[in-house]
């Protein structure tokens, strides 16, 4: 793993770039050096030629060899260019800058070839072949002298390459030194980068392991410092977000508890009734609702009520609990429905926040006679299916919502309606979550659809009717969620009793 770390990657990139640069550099130097040497050699050859030409007489006098040396020697110190003077008559090498060759004989074959050249090229010529350059001077004056001489100036490629090789060696030596320096430099450079990166890695590991209090100790002004700073900020924000999540979880747990408490407050087991068939239903749009229903019995009377607290959530549910306590305790003390409601309103007014109110619809049924008292505190009317008339009528004596007014206005407007339940008659109590259920086109379910659903299903039990209304509402909503609590109580008069 370590081998592939950032440091090694950086190192290998730098070394590769250096090597490539050095190869290119030495290649260029080689080409340049070769050209330079070739140029020097050819210039030297010309000088030698001119020297020979200008000193022919001395040259002819074999006794003055020393002078020839003096004349030529200084040009051949590097041994790249060599010169030989050959007696064409005898093939004897009269002079050679390569000492071992002096006084030797050139091979007969070569002598013939040189003689041919002399015949073909009676004037100055410079020729070249692949392996060597040679300048031959065959001058007129030269040949007029006793005996023919031929001077051959050889440019040795091997010597050039040897010379270049020496320099290349030097270059490679320098390159190696540069490489080592580069290697060390990138190593240390890598260290400089690596240290903060490792600090960051350590820090992020700590944060990743949930230690949100960890502060990455990197205080540089460069990008790494900034990165560390933003990491530290991130961990702070994470900590804050985590706290919020915890708070939210606690709140949700509280809400769940509140919901459980609220659910336990609803009438679970409906009182058994010989003459009445009752079904209830509630659904909350939010976790905690503001709707409330109750079915109570006392002596031979059954009371059904549905209420809606303005505002949902915790405030709504608290008021609902207040209302329930009041109803439950006062119901058994107070036989008169209107008096009961005046008391409930009066007590509720004391504790309710301004702006909150409750609407409530309540019916009290004498089971044996079927006589019913109905009271409405600002709620939707009671929908009654009249079996005899085969139609749905609204029963609404009128009245103010609870918690709005505790004075004469409330009292004067609170009225009771009387009704009589006969076999097959149906009562439907609901909250506006039913009638105002809104579909995506912002249309409300409405009372007419509700009434029609009751009429269409009046033959069924109270449970059948309730299910039918729920189904109708669901179809109407086309997948839209409920935006308000949805509460319904359906009551149907069975056969029996005084009027049944």
């Amino acid at each position, binding site marked *: 793993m370590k081998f592939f770390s950032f440091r090694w990657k950086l190192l290998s990139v730098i070394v590769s770039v250096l090597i490539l640069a050095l190869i290119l550099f030495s290649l260029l130097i080689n080409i340049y050096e070769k050209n330079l040497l070739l140029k020097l050699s050819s210039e030297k050859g010309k000088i030698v030629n001119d020297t020979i030409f200008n000193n022919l007489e001395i040259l002819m006098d074999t006794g003055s060899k020393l002078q020839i040396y003096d004349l030529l020697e200084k040009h051949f110190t590097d041994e790249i260019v060599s010169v030989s003077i050959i007696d064409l008559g005898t093939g004897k090498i009269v002079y050679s800058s390569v000492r071992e060759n002096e006084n030797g004989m050139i091979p007969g074959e070569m002598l013939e070839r040189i003689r041919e050249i002399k015949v073909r090229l009676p004037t100055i010529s410079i020729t070249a072949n692949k392996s060597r350059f040679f300048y031959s001077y065959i001058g007129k004056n030269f040949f007029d002298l006793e005996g023919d001489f031929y001077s051959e100036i050889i440019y040795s490629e091997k010597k050039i390459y040897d010379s270049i090789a020496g320099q290349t060696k030097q270059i490679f030596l320098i390159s190696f030194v540069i490489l080592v320096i580069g290697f060390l430099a990138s190593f240390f450079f890598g260290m400089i980068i690596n240290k903060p990166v490792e600090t960051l890695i350590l820090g992020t590991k700590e944060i990743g392991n949930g230690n949100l209090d960890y502060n990455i100790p990197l205080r540089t002004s460069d990008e790494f410092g900034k990165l560390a700073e933003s990491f530290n900020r991130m961990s702070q924000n994470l900590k804050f977000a985590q706290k919020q999540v915890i708070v939210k979880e606690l709140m949700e747990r509280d809400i769940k508890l509140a919901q459980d408490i609220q659910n336990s407050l609803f009438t679970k087991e409906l009182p058994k009734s010989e003459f009445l068939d009752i079904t209830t239903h509630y659904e909350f749009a939010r976790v905690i609702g503001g709707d409330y229903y109750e079915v109570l019995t006392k002596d031979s009377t059954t009371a059904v009520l549905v209420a*809606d607290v*303005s*505002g*949902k959530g915790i405030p709504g549910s608290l008021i609902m609990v207040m209302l329930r306590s009041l109803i439950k305790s006062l119901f058994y003390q107070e036989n008169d429905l209107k008096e009961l409601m005046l008391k409930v309103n009066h007590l509720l007014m004391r504790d309710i*926040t*301004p*702006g*909150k*109110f409750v*609407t409530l619809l309540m019916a009290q049924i004498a089971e044996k006679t079927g006589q019913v008292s109905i009271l409405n*505190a*600002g*709620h*939707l009317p009671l929908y009654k299916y009249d079996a005899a008339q085969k139609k749905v009528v609204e029963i*609404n004596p*009128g*009245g*103010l*919502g609870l918690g*709005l*007014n505790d004075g004469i*206005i*409330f009292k004067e*407007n609170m009225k009771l309606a009387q009704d009589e339940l006969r076999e097959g008659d149906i009562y439907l109590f609901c909250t*506006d979550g039913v009638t*105002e259920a809104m579909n995506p086109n*912002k249309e409300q379910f409405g009372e007419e659809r509700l009434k029609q659903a009751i009429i269409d299903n009046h033959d069924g039990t109270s449970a059948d009717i309730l299910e039918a209304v729920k189904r109708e509402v669901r179809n109407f909503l086309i997948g839209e969620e409920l*935006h*308000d609590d949805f509460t319904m109580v359906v009551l149907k008069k069975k056969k029996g009793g005084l009027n049944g």
Partner: protein
Amino acid sequence: MANLDIRPEDKNGVMILHLKGFLDAYTFQDFENRLSELIGENKVKIVVAMDELDYISSAGLGVFMSKIGEIRSRGGDIKLTQLNTKVFKVFELLGFTKLFQTFDNIQEALESF
């Protein structure tokens, strides 16, 4: 989600608030804040024009109840005008028409102050 548009109009010291759209659980806060601002500025003679109000829920009605006490104690009032049938039904059902004066047009409401 439906919106509520509140357009205020100052008519010789009486504030007319023209409501448009939905006054429900999602928008009632805007309306309540506006009423609080008016109370803060001691502009407590208020006419709420509802000819363009499509819907009012119990949360919306709650706003009127939560503010009316303070407004009346400062010598002001809230008068309601041009309630359409649907909105009027909601007000009447709850008994609000017993607690607030309603008018067919703004002029009558202004003259009632």
